[in-house]
C-alpha cells in the first residue's frame, strides 16, 4: 500500500501546493489591495489612534485651515476641531458630550452625542445594498505629504448621491486627502492635511479650547425627550430615491421654535438626509433661545440653499414647513422634500 501511495503522494504534492496558493491568493489580495479592507483600516485608525494635524478644507473656492486633535486614553475619546482662520469656532468632544464654542455668536452649545464617530468621520461597513449604488475601487497609488498613499474611490452610480476619493497613508491608513465628488467626478469639497502627527501621548492642554468663554452664553441641551405631535408624526416621504430608506424617526425642538419638529432620517447606507416637519411658527411664542433676528424669519420658506458640501430644500406641505437637509446633491433633497405627505398607517415609501 505504501508503495502505491508514494507515487500518488508525489503526484498530489504540486496540486496541494497549487491549491494552497490558489486559496491564499484571495487572502493576500484582501490583506493588501482590497479597497474595502483599506477603508476599514482607515476607520480603525481614525477611531483608535492619537493624532494631531492641521488640514485645509477647500469648498466653494474657499480655503479654511483647521486643526484636529484626537486622543484615545483609557477608553475615553477626546477630540478637538478648531478653525484657525478668523471665526475662532471650536468643537470639543469629550466621549459623549459635544461642546461647540462659537465666539462670534458669544455662545457655547453643549449637548450629548452618543455613539458618535470621530470628527474626521469614517465610512460605514459596506453591505451588499451599498454595492448597488456605489462602486468601490482602488486607483493608482501616489504620494501625498511626501508619503506613499493608496487611493480609494467610492463612486456613486447615479446622481442622487455623492462619492469620495481618499488618499490613505500606506503606513497608517490615515486619510491624508479626501475629496467629495459628484456622480460626474467633479470635486465638491476637498480636505487635505498640511501636517499630521501621530504621537504616543497628547497633553490635556492640546485639547483645551483657545476660546475665552467669559461672558459667553452657555446653552446646555439635555437628551432629547421631545415628542412630535401626532399631526407632525403622520408625515413622511412617500417616495425616495433608489436605495434610501427610513433609519430614524424622532422629534427635536429646533432653535427658535416653541414646539418639537418631527425629524426623519433617510439613508442609503452612506449618505443621509434629514427631513424636518414643523408646525407653522408663531412669532409671538418663541422659545427663550430665540434671537431678535429670528422674528422676520417666520415667514414660510420655499427653495433651495447650499449648505457647505450639501443642500437644503424647504417647502410648505399643507401648512407645515418641510425641510430636507443632507450632504447629497440638490435634486435628492428636492425629491425627498416634495414627496413628503401624510402617510396612511403602514404605508411605505416607494422607490
Amino acid at each position, binding site marked *: 500500500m505504501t508503495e502505491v501511495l508514494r507515487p500518488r503522494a508525489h503526484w498530489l504534492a504540486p496540486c496541494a501546493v497549487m491549491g494552497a496558493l490558489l486559496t491564499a491568493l484571495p487572502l493576500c489580495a484582501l490583506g493588501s489591495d482590497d479597497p474595502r479592507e483599506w477603508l476599514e483600516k482607515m476607520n480603525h485608525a481614525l477611531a483608535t489612534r492619537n493624532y494631531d494635524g492641521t488640514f485645509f478644507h477647500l469648498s466653494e473656492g474657499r480655503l479654511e485651515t483647521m486643526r484636529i486633535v484626537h486622543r484615545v486614553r483609557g477608553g475615553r475619546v477626546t477630540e478637538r476641531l478648531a*478653525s484657525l482662520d478668523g471665526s475662532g469656532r471650536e*468643537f470639543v468632544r469629550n466621549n459623549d458630550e459635544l461642546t461647540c464654542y462659537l465666539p462670534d455668536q458669544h455662545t457655547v452649545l453643549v449637548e450629548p452625542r452618543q455613539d458618535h464617530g470621530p470628527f474626521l468621520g469614517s465610512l460605514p461597513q459596506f453591505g451588499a445594498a451599498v454595492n448597488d449604488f456605489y462602486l468601490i475601487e482602488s486607483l493608482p497609488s501616489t504620494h501625498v505629504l511626501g508619503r506613499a498613499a493608496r487611493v480609494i474611490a467610492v463612486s456613486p452610480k447615479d446622481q442622487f448621491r455623492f462619492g469620495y476619493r481618499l488618499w490613505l497613508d500606506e503606513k497608517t491608513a490615515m486619510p491624508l486627502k479626501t475629496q467629495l465628488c459628484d456622480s*460626474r467626478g467633479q470635486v465638491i469639497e476637498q480636505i487635505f492635511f498640511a501636517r499630521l502627527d501621530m504621537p504616543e501621548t497628547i497633553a490635556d492642554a492640546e485639547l483645551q479650547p483657545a476660546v475665552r468663554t467669559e461672558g459667553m452664553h452657555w446653552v446646555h441641551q439635555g437628551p432629547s425627550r421631545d415628542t412630535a405631535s401626532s399631526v407632525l408624526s403622520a408625515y413622511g416621504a412617500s417616495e425616495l430615491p433608489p436605495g434610501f430608506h427610513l433609519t430614524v424617526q424622532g422629534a427635536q425642538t429646533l432653535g427658535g421654535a416653541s414646539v418639537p419638529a418631527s425629524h426623519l432620517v433617510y439613508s442609503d447606507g452612506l449618505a443621509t438626509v434629514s427631513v424636518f416637519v414643523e408646525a407653522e411658527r408663531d412669532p409671538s411664542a418663541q422659545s427663550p433661545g430665540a434671537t431678535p433676528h429670528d422674528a422676520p424669519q417666520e415667514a414660510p*420658506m420655499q427653495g433651495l440653499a447650499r449648505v457647505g458640501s*450639501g443642500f437644503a430644500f424647504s417647502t410648505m406641505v399643507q401648512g407645515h414647513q418641510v425641510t430636507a437637509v443632507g450632504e447629497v446633491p440638490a435634486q435628492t433633497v428636492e425629491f425627498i422634500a416634495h414627496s413628503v405627505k401624510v402617510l396612511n398607517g403602514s404605508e411605505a415609501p416607494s422607490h
Partner: protein
Amino acid sequence: MSEQIREQVSAFLDGELPDSETDLLLKRLTRDAELRDSFGRYALIGEALRGASPGMLTQGFASRVNLSIDGEPVPAPLQPQASRTPRWWRPFAGLGVAAGVAAVAIVTFQQRAVAPPGVATPGVATSGVVAQVSPAAVIKVAPGMPVADAAGPLSAQNHEALSYTVPTASSESNAAIAPARLTNYVFAHSKYSSGLGQRGVLADLLIEDDAPAQVAPAPVKRAAQ
C-alpha cells in the same frame, strides 16, 4: 505674494517643504486671507500640473495645460511637461488655462439641477425645474479655477479631480431659507450625517460666514398630496 512664499507654497504642494517651513507657511495662511485664496487655487492647479493623480486627469485637460505652457498643443503625457516648468511658475501657467476653459463648466453643469431621465421629482414636473434654473445665473465658475471636460459616466479612467465649480446665488433669488434656521437644521442633521459627510458638515459649521449661498428659488408648487 513674494517669490519666496510662492516657492514655499509650491514646495509644500510637492511634499518637499521642511517641517519648520511648513509651520511658518501655516501661520502665514491663518493670518492672510488673500494668501489662502491663492493657495486654494494653487492646490488644485498644482495637482494638475504635477500630474500627481494621472488616473484622474482627462486627456483634454492635459492638452489644455500643455497648450498654455508651450503655446502649442502637445499630446505628450502631462508629467514630463510639468517637470520642465519652473516650480514657481506652475500655478500661474494653470491660471491662464482656467480662464480659457471656464465656459466649459457652465455648459456642463447646466444639467446639474435636472433630474435624470426617467426619474421625476415628486410633485414637480422636470420641465418646471429647468424653467426655474437660469443657466447663466445658477452656475458660477470660481475665478482662476481649472475646469473639467464634460464628463461621461464616472470611471477610474476619467475621474476629473480639478474642477471647483459650485452653484451659487441666482441674481433674482432672496434667501430661500433663513440663515439662522438653516444653521439649526444643519446642526440637528449633523448628529445623523454618516460617513465622511459629517466632517464636511462640522467644518461648515466652523466657518465664520454662516449665511449660505442661495441657489435658484424652487418652483412654488405644493408637494403631491
